[in-house]
């Protein structure tokens, strides 16, 4: 069985940043279209089964309407929260899915990584200022996922272990393990509120696994003075404050502000940073976890994130293997779609 799993986060691409910046609105219709293209391409390219994450918006169901392939909506209770993604990823692991396609932002990929740490993953950006996922069309993603799931293309050739920030919080009687795939930020705020970190004056420090000047958001702070690429074997720590370089940073799309950096230093993989004091932790750009004044946060960058699939490389190998030739096709359009009468 060659199974492709698809996760679509219905909440991505609609947060407060659209009020204050020219960030893109990603409608449900756009997401449905991407998923539909991925399903069709997965079957076209040899997948024998597509597993879909259920969601409160019924995006996956709508995307699958009229497609006659072996499509299964996994049976998981819905919460309407990020835990739906975590549960689906875990289920995909149990079902031995060969490749996962996840639509959303950095946070969605983070949730996949929580549910299935070693997920073979194609992360498609439908969020606001994403670093971890990329702008990939569903057609290419579905095909690449299927070629990996069928074994036509080996993960050892196209999969690469990404990094993550491993986080432990000791706070009173609470002991919490969590992770970020791009950055962990310490925010001087009382509330998680509208989640997105928008006020530069509240950012105390950032630990980034990836920080490039080509990105937008918290990781771009370090990215503008000490770039760390996706595959570099290190991370970077920045502490904001007076006395250092003043850098123009796009904290949100199309929105530049000056941030003063008191300290910046590279982090070796596994090197621990310990921070104390009252804060709100922002994981991959979203305020998420309040920590009390007595709390202790330790974090380190590790090369233990999901296995990211290189879509373009996968398709090149498939082409070199003549997998796009007519005789290699696994289905026809007639096989793929049911007529309206059959629905």
């Amino acid at each position, binding site marked *: 069985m060659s199974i492709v799993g698809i996760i679509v986060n*219905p*909440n991505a691409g*609609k*947060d*407060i*940043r*659209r*009020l*204050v910046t020219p960030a893109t*609105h990603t*409608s*449900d*219709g756009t997401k449905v279209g991407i998923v539909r293209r991925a399903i069709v391409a997965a079957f076209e390219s040899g997948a024998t089964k597509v597993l879909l994450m259920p969601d*409160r*918006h*019924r995006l996956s169901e709508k995307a699958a309407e009229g497609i006659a392939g072996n499509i299964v909506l996994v049976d998981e209770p819905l919460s309407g929260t990020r835990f739906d993604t975590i549960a689906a990823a875990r289920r995909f692991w149990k079902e031995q899915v060969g490749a996962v396609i996840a639509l959303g932002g950095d946070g969605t990929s983070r949730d996949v990584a929580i549910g299935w740490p070693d997920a073979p993953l194609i992360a498609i950006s439908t969020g606001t200022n994403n670093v971890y996922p990329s702008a990939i069309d569903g057609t290419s993603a579905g095909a690449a996922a299927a070629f990996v799931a069928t074994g036509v293309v080996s993960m050892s050739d196209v999969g690469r272990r990404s990094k993550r920030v491993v986080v432990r919080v000791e706070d009173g009687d609470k002991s919490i393990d969590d992770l970020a795939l791009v950055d962990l930020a310490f925010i001087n*705020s*009382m*509330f*998680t*509120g*509208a*989640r997105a970190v928008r*006020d530069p004056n509240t950012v105390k420090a950032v630990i980034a696994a990836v920080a490039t000047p080509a990105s937008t958001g918290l990781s771009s702070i370090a990215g503008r003075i000490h770039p760390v690429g996706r595959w570099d074997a290190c991370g970077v720590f920045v502490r904001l404050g007076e006395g250092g370089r003043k850098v123009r940073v796009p904290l949100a799309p199309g929105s530049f502000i000056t941030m003063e950096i008191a300290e910046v230093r590279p982090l070796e993989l596994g090197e621990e940073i310990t921070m104390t004091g009252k804060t709100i932790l922002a994981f991959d750009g979203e305020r998420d976890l*309040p920590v*009390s004044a007595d709390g202790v946060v330790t974090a380190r960058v590790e090369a233990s994130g999901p296995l990211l699939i290189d879509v373009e490389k996968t398709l090149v190998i498939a082409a070199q293997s003549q997998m796009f030739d007519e005789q290699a096709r696994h289905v026809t359009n007639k096989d793929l779609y049911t007529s309206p009468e059959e629905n």
Partner: protein
Amino acid sequence: MDFSSAKQFDLHRRMVRIRLFEEAAGRLAESNKLPGFLHLYVGEEAVASGVCGALNDDDHITSTHRGHGHLVAKGGDFNRMMAELMGKSTGYCKGKGGSMHISDTSLGMLGANGIVGAGSPIAVGAAFANKYRGKGQVAVAFFGDGSTNIGAFHEAANMACALHLPIVFACENNEYGEFTPRDKTMAITDVVDRAAGYGMPGVIVDGMDVIAVHEAAVEAVERARQGGGPSMIEAKTYRFYNHHGVQNLGLKYRSDEEVAIWKQRDPIFTFEDRMIENGVATRANFDDIWAELRADIETAIQFAEDSPYPTPDQIMVNVYTSMTGAN
């Protein structure tokens, strides 16, 4: 953004005022002391409070059939509101309007509205007037998810964007239009997906989190005030009681489990917990606030009960306006 302790207490106070007014109104309705329909706002307090907490006194709002919360959050007077609900001559509409028609132009509250969807075009009119006056006033249209299936909403959204008016569309998406689940009447889930079609930004916030709502409201209002044009905020929220009244009337259109899950996210109690964790307030502070506002409610009930009904000779008075211009 101002999240001083004073601002936190202000937002909290608005929510508690709404909760206490609505709980009292519900009790009075159940004991047959209030005539007419009653649509309670309990559970949705964070939306009106978070939005109105971002407005000035001379900014305008339009409301819905579930309108008590909006007026309370804008500073409405308990005595006059309760008297109106009882149909007394000391009420906001001199006892002739009842629950769904209260307005207070001195607070910029242009009226609750018994017609679903009818408030949005009125807010557009106010926004047009505000733009014309050039004093930086903003209008907010409160409306429910169900009303966005009605033509008036679409005309309002289109005109607001075409004329680039200083308006915020504040959608209270509580998942049900009366007794019908949202997915039975809409092919989409998020109302903000409609905003883009008119050319305005739309954002989703947690409508059970007054800080999240307030953050978005401050940005949207400021945007409108500075000439940035319309925007939409969709607050995902939930009404704890029935579409109207308190009881379910035997209509089992949502599960007890669903209601219980949403009640765990009570916007007032979760906010109180967070304020205590942050060291901004103590439980004793909140006990005092609730006690003070309960006393205000009891005063309002007594005021309303002691007030006379309008006399028959008043039947045509204040029904039609003689005004030739808006305040």
